[in-house]
């Protein structure tokens, strides 16, 4: 078997950090000190190859004026849209990340992560399609794809610009990796993904000096051929997808991260169960993973100066973000299982 270089181990985890510091969801999403402390605790305890900040799909929508509900221990949701379909977004300026909503919480957190953490740093950006649904109504966005009278495209131009701007701020603050979250794309056909989602994602990816990943939650099997053709550095997929089949299709063209089930395995399994799953996945992936050379200004794992990160294109990760209920010993088991040598 080809010597592929090491596997990066990157569980998507922010919320389990609440167990370590006693902070609430509300606190970490509204206060960069609380957020950094939780991430710092996770980083020190588990040393993932990349530490992502907290996943919050409402931050950009809220900054654009959408109303968001917060609870102490649940990730927030958008409850009221801010843009009327007909014309609202035309009048709006693009975001000021320092002033609008809570975006600065994530930017300040990233700055502290850069200053204080050894491992590579990841940040999330809500994808243009998903953001469009949050600000103008997901049903209108979905139907807009069929009607295709131009209004959806104009809205997507706006949300793409928002996402680009925010991504660039996060990179300037220290993010090595930008993960674009597009859960709404899981609802559409490959043709509509190609028409309405691929281009905006590529625009964001092309405009930041960072590694970009595209993450779409759920069973995106029909979308995989299109996702593989999307110009990003890698894709991150959920547990419902056959990741080994995708690795085979990829033939080394890009990175793929995934896909241990964050609920069934990470919440409900024992640590032994987690290790078994991880070992099983790594064994299966072995046959298909290829060496990837990261040609960004900084490769993952290469921290000093320009260079190239040489590693396997298979990044062991969770299928989606770990909820707060994930026991810390399961994260430990994930990391151990990810790092032990497998024959």
């Amino acid at each position, binding site marked *: 078997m080809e010597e592929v270089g090491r596997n990066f181990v990157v569980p998507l985890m922010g919320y389990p950090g609440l167990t370590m510091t006693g902070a609430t969801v509300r606190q970490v999403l509204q206060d960069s000190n609380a957020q950094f402390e939780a991430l710092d605790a996770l980083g020190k305890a588990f040393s993932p190859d990349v530490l992502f900040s907290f996943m919050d799909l409402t931050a950009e929508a809220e900054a654009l004026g959408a109303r968001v*509900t917060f*609870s102490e221990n*649940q*990730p927030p*949701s*958008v*409850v009221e849209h801010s843009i009327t379909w007909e014309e609202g977004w035309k009048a709006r300026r693009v975001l000021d990340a320092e002033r609008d909503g809570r975006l600065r919480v994530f930017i300040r957190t990233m700055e502290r992560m850069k200053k204080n953490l050894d491992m590579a740093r990841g940040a999330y950006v809500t994808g243009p399609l998903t953001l469009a649904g949050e600000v103008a109504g*997901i*049903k209108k966005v*979905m*139907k807009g*794809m*069929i009607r295709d009278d131009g209004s959806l495209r104009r809205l997507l131009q706006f949300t793409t610009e928002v996402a680009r701007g925010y991504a660039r701020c996060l990179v300037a603050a220290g993010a090595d990796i930008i993960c674009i979250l597009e859960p709404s794309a*899981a*609802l*559409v*056909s490959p043709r*509509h993904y190609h028409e309405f989602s691929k281009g905006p994602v590529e625009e964001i990816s092309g405009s930041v000096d960072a590694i970009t990943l595209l993450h779409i*939650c*759920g069973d995106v099997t*029909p979308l995989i051929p299109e996702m593989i053709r999307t110009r990003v550095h890698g894709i991150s997929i959920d547990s419902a997808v056959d990741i080994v089949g995708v690795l085979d299709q990829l033939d080394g063209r890009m990175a793929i991260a995934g896909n241990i089930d*964050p*609920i*069934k395995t990470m*919440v*409900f399994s024992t640590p032994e169960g987690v290790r078994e799953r991880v070992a099983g996945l790594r064994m299966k992936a072995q046959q298909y993973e290829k060496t990837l050379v990261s040609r960004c200004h900084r490769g993952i794992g290469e921290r000093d100066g320009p260079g190239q990160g040489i590693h396997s294109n298979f990044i062991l990760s969770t299928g*989606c973000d770990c*909820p*707060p*209920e994930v026991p810390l010993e399961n994260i430990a088991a994930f990391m151990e299982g990810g790092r032990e040598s497998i024959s």
Partner: protein
Amino acid sequence: MDAGKQDEILNQLSEGVVQFDEDQVIRASRRALDEGIDALTAIVEGLSRGMETVGDLFQRKKYFVPEVLMCADALNAGLDILKPHLKADGAATKKRRVVIGTIEGDIHEIGKSLVALMLDISGFEVRDLGVDVSLERFLSEHREQRSDIIAISALMSTTMLRMRDFIEGIKEADPEALTMVGGAPLSAEIARGFGADGYAEDARGAVIEAKRILAID
């Protein structure tokens, strides 16, 4: 009226739904009434049949959410015309009742609304509570409606994890109540683990599952 003409109109209704051609559905609904076709027949054998085909296309990954939403719009355009002409029916009181909502903390509603629609056109009496529904509200509506099934949807893994508590709370308040769950992060296994009586992957499956747990065909 001749059976051929009735079939033609029913097919137009059904096809109109499948092709999400609202105009065709509206024309055919009016025609159905003009030609004296029973409104219930037009709904069940025209519109509902079309929506079953849509459900099929969705399961086979030919149709996705955008298409299904457009079909639902066409269906609703037909229902708007035909429903007012349904005969008041003693049998209505024997209709099985479902109270449905998206769980507290979760505001996703597309799937839940499609399930509500499919149950409605399949002969259930449906009370859709919307989104972010607390346990207390599920229970009070269940009591008020004397519903047979409480159906709970969750689209996020975080909100899904609360389903177990909700189901326990429902069983405690009314051991006879039947619960059904659905939503993208769920599976039959997870649903069983939560103690739900039924689980469905999509709207079409929800109708079949509701009938199964009520032991009706």
